[in-house]
């Protein structure tokens, strides 16, 4: 899908994304600390079932299980040299699950390497890692590239530049939180100007993902949507993860999430989905709420 195709699709109405994948795989038995991407090779059927549930819940874009499938993260997980194979498997599982009913996004997350002053990584290193992952995704037939949950604008820009070079539509989102003077990434990149930079660098759509609840993200959408030329994407969490002896718990009520997502669309967001802790139930309720809000 070319950038122009995504833009013209967005003209006709909001695009429904999928929800949490890693949290669903953990619920399906993925061991703590194991990379979800390892299941692309070990348990492709389980990954496909989660994708399919999202397609049936109404997701028009599903994210392949490739979020952490970049060379540095794979080698940290003992999977070095498997970048191409794991990304290809991720795309083909998502493609099978979609059965032609939804688009398949190649998912690109942070490398885990830190630029100065926090770490010693270089932009060139990050760019090379993104180039390698993105080319594996394109080769495997991704419809678009979705860069998610970035917290350092410099890293996000490196990813956008790598993705833009493929000619596919690029969705790029970062993780912001509320601070005294507005919404910022933990590195101090301010919401609106960071999203503008991503769009100037060639992202077709830009947005906010992860970390915050839907009510907090609604405030971000209200602030950012009127100030951006690029379409805005929103993917909040199902609340803040809380660990108990029984496992990770997300506290948000899916119906509250759904009405918040509909309010974000009413405020100008054009792509809407969920992040950690959201399930097909969240997406199907959100889709109903959004359809109700946009229908005349």
């Amino acid at each position, binding site marked *: 899908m070319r950038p122009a195709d995504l833009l013209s699709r967005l003209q006709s109405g909001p695009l429904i994304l999928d929800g949490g994948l890693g949290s669903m795989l*953990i619920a399906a038995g993925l061991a*703590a*600390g194991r990379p979800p991407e390892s299941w692309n090779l070990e348990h492709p059927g389980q990954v496909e079932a989660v994708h399919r549930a999202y397609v049936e819940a109404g997701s028009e874009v599903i994210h392949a299980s490739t979020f952490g499938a970049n060379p540095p993260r794979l080698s*940290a997980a003992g999977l070095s040299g498997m970048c191409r194979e794991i990304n290809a498997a991720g795309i083909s599982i998502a493609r099978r699950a979609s059965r032609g009913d939804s688009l398949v996004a190649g998912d690109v997350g942070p490398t*885990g390497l830190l630029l100065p*002053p*926090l770490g010693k990584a270089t932009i060139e290193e990050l760019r090379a890692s993104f180039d390698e992952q993105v080319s594996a995704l394109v080769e495997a037939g991704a419809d678009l590239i979705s860069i998610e949950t970035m917290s350092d604008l410099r890293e996000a820009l490196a990813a956008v530049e790598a993705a833009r070079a493929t000619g596919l539509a690029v969705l790029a989102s970062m993780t912001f939180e509320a*601070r*005294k*003077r507005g919404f*910022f*990434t*933990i*590195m*101090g990149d301010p919401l609106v100007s960071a999203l503008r930079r991503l769009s100037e660098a060639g992202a077709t759509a830009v947005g906010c993902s992860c970390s915050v609840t839907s009510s907090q993200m609604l405030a971000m959408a209200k602030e950012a949507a009127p100030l951006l030329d690029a379409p805005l994407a929103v993917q909040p969490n199902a609340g*803040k*993860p*809380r*660990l*108990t*002896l029984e496992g*990770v718990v997300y506290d948000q009520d899916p119906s509250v999430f759904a009405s918040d997502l509909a309010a974000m669309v009413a405020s100008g967001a054009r792509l809407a989905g969920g992040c950690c802790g959201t399930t097909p139930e969240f997406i199907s309720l959100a889709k109903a709420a959004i359809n109700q809000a946009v229908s005349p």
Partner: protein
Amino acid sequence: MADSDELFSGLYQAVLSGDEDGAARLATRALDSGHSALETIERALIPGIREAGDLWEEGEYFLPELVTAAQAMKAAMAVLQPVLGAEAKSLSLGRVVIATVEGDIHDIGKSLVATMLSANGFEVIDEGAGVPVSRLIERAREVDADLVCASALLTTTMPRQRELVNAVRSAGLRAKVMVGGAPVTRGWAEQIGADGHADNALSAVNVARTLVGHRAAG
């Protein structure tokens, strides 16, 4: 004395603004002008890192500013530490083994806690990030630690803290266990039976003091 006020205020500013070279240089000058390492830490480094922490809490500072402030403090501590050791062995409040748990590469918060504990008179053995429980147990036994601190920044790695608590108990170590990390709550610490929990580097110092004090009293 006005001169020393100026010196300490310069060092405080160097920490606050994340100036590593300046911090190391001024720490050296403080020693050269006859101030003790402890006085230098108390009058300049601790107020500096505390202010950086406050600015972070208030939303003025972001992670890069906070981290460079910690790095500047570390550079000054590298100058002061050898002297501090020589100044008074009796100063040590206790021996602490600290690490970020296995599977978790987040180093910053843990290093900040390590620096603050060390600046406040603890003898700190920092094992780094991604450390298996077995290595923490081994090291705690080797140094006869008073306290073992484990940081976890992910809900997927927090269960390692629970394993640590159990391992310390079953190894029969006398060390107390303190846990921390952004997603770690007091409720979690209580559930897993940790002795203490701190949600920032300053409170970590207070909690560590209390925990070690408890041991001495008991």
